[in-house]
């Protein structure tokens, strides 16, 4: 199913807009969710009877419940502004990866069944006039395939004159598919693990505790300072919620060590939680509000149980979006926390604040072996903010990098800030059965990165998203670059920070002469 031969796109100087190649990415889509993964989320085991009608009804319901969806479906004028904005289109040339065409897979069915014009023309047999489309197996196949070639990154929405957000349509389509029994294995399995164990990776408490102890030893070995990585510490001030990949995946874990060092230096007590040992909320990806609420409520419960005063989120893109824009609505109000602090807070805001107040001793020369660039993660860039200042989500991470590294270079303007390209693996696509999609979708980012490597000798790219980090570790080598190029932003902080009482001026680093 997934082992089709494909060629890795070639890196050119510019990000080229390809000529359309219909069906270039006509694939079976990712692995489908098995019955146990469906059941855990309350979805039917397999494709239900009369699914066509159920899908059409669910579509009507979804539109009734979301003004965004309704406006987006009605308003598109097919101007074409978005057609060259999606990284999956740029990397694959399949026209159904153009945002408007992706939307039309949904819109055409909506038009036929749920608009007066569509119903009228349908009766006359004139569906073709407005592109009305019957709900049938080939539509479902296209939905399953092409709605899993969208990372819900919202880049298209930045350029749409009506702000039409394809992500909202992708989410609605995925939820409808789940409801008729066609779920995606990767996302639904992950959500099941969060329900059962508390995090995406299914790390139970014992394993978590063990991992944290191992990391304490690593930090002590490196710095000579013992830093406690507390788990379920009742009465701590701060609850730190991070993506579970931070506990052991590379380069994520180096970022986690960075958070620990910063929190240690701040002198404020903090803790991880077993119950909320996951910042990510994959229910956003599948557009299921009930699951999203259920996952969000764990964080509220953990905060109450541990009696913390503040909640801080680690480096994770969509987790920050959900935390920043959804958490209060889903699980609020959080009025039991200390209201003097933003709820929630991003670890970058916390670190930035300490840097501003000169509470961290930083030695940027420890990162002199690197020339760093920064990858703006899509959900942070286009669906959230940091610091409460306009564009803070762009300036704060860059400020931190500049405080911890001497050599910083930005990638091309049309590939950063709100125009940033997705890593290619977001939105529930970070699974091996979608490797071709991930490789092709990474093309624009790889092009922009390659350009600063060649022009400025960039050696590392920092990111603040667990998915971006995992995706790039895998994709960089495919494009002939070193997988270690991708680093956590707090890994740079971790390198540069001089801990109070630390004896060795420079920690051993094999990269330094």
């Amino acid at each position, binding site marked *: 199913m997934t082992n089709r031969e494909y060629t890795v796109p070639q890196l050119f100087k510019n990000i080229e*807009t390809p000529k359309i190649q219909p069906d270039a990415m006509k694939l079976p889509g990712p692995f489908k969710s098995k019955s146990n993964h469906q059941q855990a989320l309350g979805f039917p085991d397999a494709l239900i009877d009369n699914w066509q009608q159920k899908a059409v009804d669910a579509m009507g319901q979804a539109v009734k419940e979301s003004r*965004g969806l309704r406006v*987006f479906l009605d308003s598109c004028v097919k101007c*074409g*502004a978005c057609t060259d904005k999606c990284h999956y289109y740029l990397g694959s040339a399949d026209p159904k990866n153009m945002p408007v*065409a992706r939307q039309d897979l949904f819109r055409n069915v909506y038009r036929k069944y749920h608009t007066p014009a569509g119903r009228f023309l349908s009766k006359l047999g004139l569906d073709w006039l407005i592109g009305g489309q019957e709900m049938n197996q080939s539509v479902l196949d296209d939905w399953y395939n092409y709605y899993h070639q969208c990372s819900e990154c919202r880049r298209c929405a930045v350029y749409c004159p009506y702000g*039409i957000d394809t992500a909202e349509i992708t989410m609605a389509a995925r939820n409808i598919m789940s409801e008729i029994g066609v779920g995606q294995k990767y996302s639904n399995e992950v959500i099941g693990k969060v329900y059962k164990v508390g995090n995406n990776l299914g790390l139970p408490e014992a394993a978590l505790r063990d991992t944290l102890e191992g990391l304490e030893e690593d930090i002590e070995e490196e710095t000579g300072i013992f830093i406690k990585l507390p788990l379920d510490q009742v009465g701590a001030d701060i609850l730190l919620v991070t993506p579970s990949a931070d506990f052991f995946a590379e380069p994520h874990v180096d970022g986690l060590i960075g958070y620990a060092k910063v929190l240690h230096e701040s002198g404020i007590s903090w803790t991880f939680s077993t119950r909320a040992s996951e910042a990510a909320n994959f229910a956003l990806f599948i557009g299921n509000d009930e699951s999203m609420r259920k996952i969000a409520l764990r964080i509220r419960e953990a905060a109450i149980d541990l009696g913390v005063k503040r909640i801080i989120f680690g480096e994770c893109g969509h987790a920050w979006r959900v935390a920043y824009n959804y958490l209060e*609505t889903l699980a609020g109000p959080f009025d039991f926390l200390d209201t003097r602090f933003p709820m929630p807070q991003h670890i970058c805001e916390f670190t930035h604040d300490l840097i501003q107040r000169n509470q961290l001793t930083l030695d940027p020369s420890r990162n002199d072996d690197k020339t760093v660039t920064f990858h703006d993660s899509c959900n942070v860039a286009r669906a959230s903010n940091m610091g409460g200042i*306009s564009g803070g989500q762009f300036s704060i991470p860059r400020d931190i990098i500049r405080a911890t590294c001497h050599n910083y270079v930005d990638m091309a303007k049309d590939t950063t800030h709100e125009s940033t390209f997705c890593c290619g693996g977001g939105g529930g696509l970070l699974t091996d059965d979608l490797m071709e999609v991930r490789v092709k979708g990474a093309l624009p980012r790889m092009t922009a990165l390659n350009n600063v490597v060649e022009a400025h000798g960039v050696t590392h790219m920092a990111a603040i998203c667990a998915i971006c980090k995992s995706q790039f570790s895998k994709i960089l080598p495919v494009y002939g670059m070193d997988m270690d190029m991708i680093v956590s932003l707090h890994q740079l902080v971790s390198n540069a920070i001089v801990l109070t009482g630390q004896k060795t001026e420079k920690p051993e680093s094999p990269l330094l002469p």
Partner: protein
Amino acid sequence: MNIFFATAFYFAAAVITLGLGHKVFQYWSTPTPFRIPITPAPSTFPGVILRMMGEVFLFKSLFKANKWIWLLGWVFHASLVLVMLQHLVYFMQQPPIWIYQLQPYSQLAAYPLLISLGGLLLRRFMVDRVRYISSPSDFLMLFLLIAIASSGLLMLLVWPSNVYLIQQYFTGLLRLTINPLPDDLSLYLHLILVVILLLIFPFSKLLHAPGVFFSPTLNQADKTRQKQHQSSKPREPE
């Protein structure tokens, strides 16, 4: 013909008023489950107004996206506004002086109106990506607008109609009286096409006009950390 057009315009006026009214009410009353502004977004209401004005008057996002579409789209809409302002004279017994002062410009605007429509049509044929996403209705919409503009220009340049009679006719309709309409074919053509446009407005992509104001990605302020966004969906018992 007088009665035919009177009926047609009354009917079209009813359809567009009720149709758009219904759509606006529908947008208004549909819940917004979450806060989803495209960031960076303004955090205050005046900021949102500014953002919206930038989109509605300047097409800012479109400008970022594609200079050709922006140029053609903006010129089309700006010319259309000028031309439509001029048409207000047909609905007023004593039009204000500024409409007459605007007249030379409005008449000139017919040219960029047609040229930009032609450009948009050409784009739909020439650019493979845009051709792919175009339905027959997208072409027909452009043909309709081109036909309306051309028949109007025809009356301006080749077969002038009795403007006074047209004004009497429409101001009459406003007072529920039917006056005689000049019997010009180009006028009939122009009017019937306009009736068609009015009739399809609330059922077509022309809904982008009210839609843009309700687009949550553009009209929501970025302020969730200051104020809880209330989901209007029923919440499950906790």
